[in-house]
């Protein structure tokens, strides 16, 4: 009981929380116009553009090492996401979207474990909302252009092969899940994975620092070392999660486009 009181009286360790993600404005303005995360977003776009421009600039018939790497990256997304999901008939029109989305999200996510940068912009929900909104507009637009508004609504909300009496129950559910919940989960998935990963790294780093340097008591030093070791292990886990989330984001985008293009069931 006494230890508890002393802990409450002296809150030495402040666990990291959502407030740690609210980065200050670079020019110290009252309105948040330019933060580290928006700069990183621009940097990622520039990096992806420069990377693909450099690898495809020469366009040699027999590719060099650099061009080969660029073409391998491009054709991996084209074949394993575009062709396999959207289908042979009209995948090629969406390959530029899928490739640029994949590498944009991937580079942004990898910023989370690059030393010095160390912040994944998509751990702020607003950026993820923007990207998912873009995807939502594209797949709905593509569907409406292909089937007409009523035909598209019917495609998305009336599942085939079910008895008629259950349709009044299914149509609102399908409308909700296919047109309203999809962009929400698409953005929240990306955001929450980046957010949780960054929070874990913050927790182990600040916790290890506190245990090693500030805390007193038996066993705090070994616990601090353990915390840093766990932080490094979580860093490797983060790498896997970051690549996987970029893949999942683009895979789902391709699935939504393919669903919007599908002919009648």
């Amino acid at each position, binding site marked *: 009981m006494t230890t508890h009181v002393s802990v409450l009286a002296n809150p030495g360790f402040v666990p990291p929380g959502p407030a740690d993600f609210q980065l200050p404005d670079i020019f110290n303005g009252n309105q948040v116009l330019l933060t580290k995360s928006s700069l990183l977003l621009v940097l990622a776009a520039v990096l992806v553009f420069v990377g693909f421009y450099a690898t495809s600039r020469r366009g040699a018939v027999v590719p060099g090492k650099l061009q080969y790497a660029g073409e391998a990256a491009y054709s991996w997304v084209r074949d394993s996401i575009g062709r396999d999901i959207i289908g042979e008939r009209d995948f090629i029109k969406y390959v530029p979207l899928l490739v640029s989305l994949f590498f944009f999200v991937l580079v942004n996510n990898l910023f989370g474990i690059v030393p010095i940068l160390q912040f994944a912009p998509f751990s702020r929900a607003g950026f993820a909302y923007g990207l998912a909104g873009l995807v939502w507009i594209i797949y709905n637009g593509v569907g409406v252009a292909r089937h007409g508004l009523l035909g598209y609504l019917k495609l998305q909300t009336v599942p085939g092969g079910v008895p008629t009496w259950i349709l009044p129950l299914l149509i609102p559910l399908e409308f909700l899940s296919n047109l309203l919940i999809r962009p929400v989960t698409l953005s*929240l998935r990306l955001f929450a994975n980046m957010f949780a990963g960054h929070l874990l790294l913050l927790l182990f780093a600040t916790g290890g620092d506190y245990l090693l340097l500030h805390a007193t008591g038996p066993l705090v030093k070994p616990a601090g070392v353990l915390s840093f070791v766990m932080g490094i292990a979580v860093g490797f886990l983060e790498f896997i999660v970051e690549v996987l989330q970029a893949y999942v984001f683009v895979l789902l985008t391709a699935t939504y486009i393919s669903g919007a293009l599908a002919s009648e069931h």
Partner: protein
Amino acid sequence: MASGGSLNMIGYGLAAVGPGIGIGLIFAAYINGTARQPEMQSRLQPIAILGFALAEALAIIGIALAFVLK
């Protein structure tokens, strides 16, 4: 015994059990399928990842609500 913190996090921990079991089942089926028919691996992989993403959405909604609801 006074204690700080939010009960939301305990609720979120409970809510994450369901998606956890679901994701386990999905990958168990994926590994099983690949072990029985290794040549199907490239066909099964996007399906498994898609199922994983859909099951994970439940946990994602949970963590969003755990921070939002007061």
